């Protein structure tokens, strides 16, 4: 006996000037189920959610929405929230300077005639926090919480609105493995309490873990809805096939690696926190990368991977930095970012939108920024050379844009990532440090990024690859270093490494790491 439907979106079509974002999409969510929506970036997932939430109001799309057996026409978010549909967006909508309690009841305050009752607010907030399993004082500022806990606050906020259907857009994209598991556990718990969820996710293993049904979108159309019977294991390959419309036989392209001599080495590197100068963020780390080798850097969020790389890259992070950096067998001193670039080191930052790109600028101006010297003569830029070089990258990297004068902010995540990579490859580096390049991009683009990494290794570069996705590290790297709480807790070769062995090293605490040094 199938449960009755809580939500039915019938024949939804929505177009923007020049593009059809959705064409006759159908989505059926049953009461109390967890329903995943999978699809590549640009498949129409977010648009569908925005139609449901009233962000694209009734009348701006075609088709019907039936909710709890009744046809609905939402004019704005308030309309949908009043009916118990709450959307949690990928970019969290919390105000960092306000407390947990204030955020939970923002726009929905416990007040009489405009005067807030703080006692009641605290009491209710505490109850909600217990429900989501977050052990924090409701007075704590959001800014003092990690992303994982912030996500839980968002859910508490949704619960305060008497949610019946919870919609989560990429809820675990910014979370580490541990926090992701906690979150998924919570969603399962809500399900037990009769709250249905719709999850948009790129992480197929998580989808496979919790979903009762999966709807696959591709190019604005519904491809299929897979219903999972109890105890049945979902075939990830079937989802991937549906998403990309082709077999991804080689998610990780084949590569034969022949590493050469050591090209890049960091010795006894220690970094202190920029504000709390008694706290070691990176503690006596030594590592090396050979020519033509891809070396992974694994660790949970806060393990110090990004901090290590940024402090090496022209002291862009931290204070009281000590240790040595070698290129070949020569020690180099990298006091500024330009020193690092001059020595042939490139750091492809995580969070491309914040640290990597000028979103309001064109592809060609982004690509040239770190190496303007190459396209200018006596400080005067040759726009022709600049455009020609960028055009070369557009073709070589398969950046999907009309031309290099396209504004980067209008590109999809995967294409933006290719622009950041182009920018750094354009500096002619020997050593590339690449930080979370595949976060939030679709499977097709990921596969292309792996191809680019392989090509860099084949071109005799040394590549240091930071990632939070273990399958990706296992699929791409020759060796993997593991950091935990600022310390190196292990080094594994490709053949020795498994998700389990990595996870064990990643969660190893300070005390244990001294004794247990796996080599």
């Amino acid at each position, binding site marked *: 006996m199938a449960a009755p439907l809580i939500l039915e979106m019938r024949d939804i079509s929505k177009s*923007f*000037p*020049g*593009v059809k974002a959705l064409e006759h999409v159908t989505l059926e969510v049953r009461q109390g189920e967890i329903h995943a929506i999978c699809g590549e970036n640009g498949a129409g997932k977010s648009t569908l959610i925005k139609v449901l939430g009233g962000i694209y109001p009734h009348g701006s799309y075609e088709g019907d929405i039936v909710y709890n057996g009744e046809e609905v026409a939402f004019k704005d978010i308030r309309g949908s929230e009043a009916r118990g549909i709450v959307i949690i967006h990928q970019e969290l909508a919390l105000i960092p300077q306000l407390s947990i309690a204030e955020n939970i009841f923002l726009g929905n305050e416990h007040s009489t005639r405009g005067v807030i009752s703080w006692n009641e607010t605290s009491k209710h907030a505490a109850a909600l926090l217990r429900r989501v399993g977050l052990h924090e004082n409701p007075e704590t500022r959001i800014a003092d919480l990690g992303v994982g806990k912030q996500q839980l606050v968002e859910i508490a906020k949704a619960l305060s609105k008497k949610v019946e259907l919870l919609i989560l857009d990429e809820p675990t994209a910014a979370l580490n493995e541990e926090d992701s598991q906690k979150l998924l556990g919570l969603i399962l718990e809500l399900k037990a309490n009769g709250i249905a969820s719709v999850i948009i996710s790129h992480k197929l293993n998580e989808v496979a873990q919790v979903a009762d049904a999966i709807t696959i979108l591709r190019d604005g159309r519904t491809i299929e809805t897979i219903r999972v019977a109890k105890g049945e294991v979902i075939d990830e390959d079937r989802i991937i096939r549906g998403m990309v419309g082709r077999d991804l036989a080689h998610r990780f392209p084949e590569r034969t690696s022949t590493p050469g001599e050591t090209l890049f080495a960091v010795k006894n590197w220690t970094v202190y926190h920029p504000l709390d100068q008694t706290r070691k963020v990176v503690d006596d780390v030594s590592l090396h990368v050979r020519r033509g080798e891809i070396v992974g850097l694994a660790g949970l969020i806060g393990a110090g991977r990004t901090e290590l790389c940024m402090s090496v*890259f*022209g002291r*862009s992070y931290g204070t009281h930095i000590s240790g040595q950096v070698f290129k070949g067998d020569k020690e180099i001193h990298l006091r*500024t*970012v*330009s020193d*690092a*670039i001059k020595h042939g080191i490139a*750091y492809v*930052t995580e969070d491309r939108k*914040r*640290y*990597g*790109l*000028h*979103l*309001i*600028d*064109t592809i060609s*101006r982004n690509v040239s*920024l*770190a190496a*303007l*010297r190459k396209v*200018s003569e006596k*400080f*005067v*830029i040759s*726009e*022709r050379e600049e*455009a*020609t070089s960028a*055009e070369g990258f557009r073709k070589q990297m398969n950046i999907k*844009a*009309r*031309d*290099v*004068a*396209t*504004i980067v*902010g*209008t*590109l999809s995540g995967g294409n933006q990532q290719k622009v950041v990579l182009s*920018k750094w490859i354009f500096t002619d580096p020997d050593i590339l440090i690449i930080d979370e390049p595949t976060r939030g991009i679709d499977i097709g683009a990921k596969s292309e990024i792996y191809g680019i990494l392989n090509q860099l290794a084949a071109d005799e570069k040394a590549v240091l690859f930071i990632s939070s996705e273990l399958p990706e590290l296992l699929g791409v790297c020759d060796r993997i270093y593991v950091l935990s709480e600022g310390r190196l807790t292990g080094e594994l070769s490709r053949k020795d490494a498994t998700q389990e062995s990595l996870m064990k090293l990643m969660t190893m605490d300070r005390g244990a790491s001294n004794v247990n040094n796996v080599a």
Partner: protein
Amino acid sequence: MSTTSPEREVGGQAPQSGAGVASVLRTAFSKNIRQSGMLLALAVIVVYYQIVTHGTTLHPANVSNVIQQNGYILVLAIGMVIVIISGHIDLSVGSVAALTGAVAAQLMIKQHWPWGWAVVAALVVGALIGAWQGFWIAYIGIPSFIVTLSGMLVFRGITFTVLGGRDVGQLPRGFRERTTGFLPKYDLGFGGKVHNLTIVLGLLFALFVVVNQWRDRRVQTRYGAEALPLYLFVGKVAAVVAFLLGFTWLLARYNGYPVVLLILAFLLLTYGFIMKRTVLGRHIYAVGGNSLAAKLSGVKSQRVTFFVFVNMGILAALCGLLITARLNSATQSAGNFFELEAIAAAFIGGASASGGVGTVLGAVIGGLVTAVIANGLSLTSASTGRQYIVRGLLLMFAVAFDIFNKKRVGR
């Protein structure tokens, strides 16, 4: 000049094939929406006042007057738009203009310095003030709003001290003529009725525009970017040339080019070139657009910010010299509200309050729109109150127009 604004581009979809003239025009227009919009608005406003004032607006004497009355604001606007592009603001420029004017006047009158040296001294003072403010902003990290708000008070205060509580006037003639006068009259054989040197310079400017535009177009087409179709391109250049020559002819029938106009043309070309074509200019856009990303790309953002403020100090000093010469005295209240007029010009001309967007040409056009409206209002003897209201609303609607446009094209 061919400054293309880095405004957000339309949508991201390629235009359908078989696009007609209208759609080509639309693309060209929308790529540069605020600047083109403002140019169009400028033309409409001029025509409107020309009709309302029965021809006084475009009378050579009035045109000459508008330029001389607003030249010093435009000098500030050029510096200010660069500050705004770099993601900052400068509230102190009015006070800096007053102080540097006072310093120059005192050196000329009290110390009997030759005026040339006094000018150099004023510019150096401007640069030092810029360095002082730039140091706190770039290297210590105090928000520019606060540093320059402090500067606004401090430098106004120093002006009072320098002037000793009274106006210092009767400046040397050479100083006034070289800054607020007109080009000398030479008879080059075009007859005494028109200003010969102005005609020659006007023709040279026109030639420069044609050559420059043609060069740009060749670069564009060579790498296959979308350029305007030839007939539209010729039309556009012809329009610019016709405007330049008509403008020159107007002024030539009066006293010729004012010196201030040449100073402005020089600044416009120089800074336009720096911002569009040089590594420094690119770095200024990069720091303003996303300073974190710029830093991690090897841009020395502190040094760039410092330079931007030193430059603003020098331009504020130049403004101070021009206003002092024009008033023929240095006064304690000189330059009041100049910072606001310069900021308004930059925003009307397309700069973004969040940095990274704007052009030097746009700021000058923005300043001109304000100037023409102010002039028209005073020609039609509108009250001062009304002038303020109209200019205030102009700022608001110019930016609102832009935001509306972005929403419409941007989904």
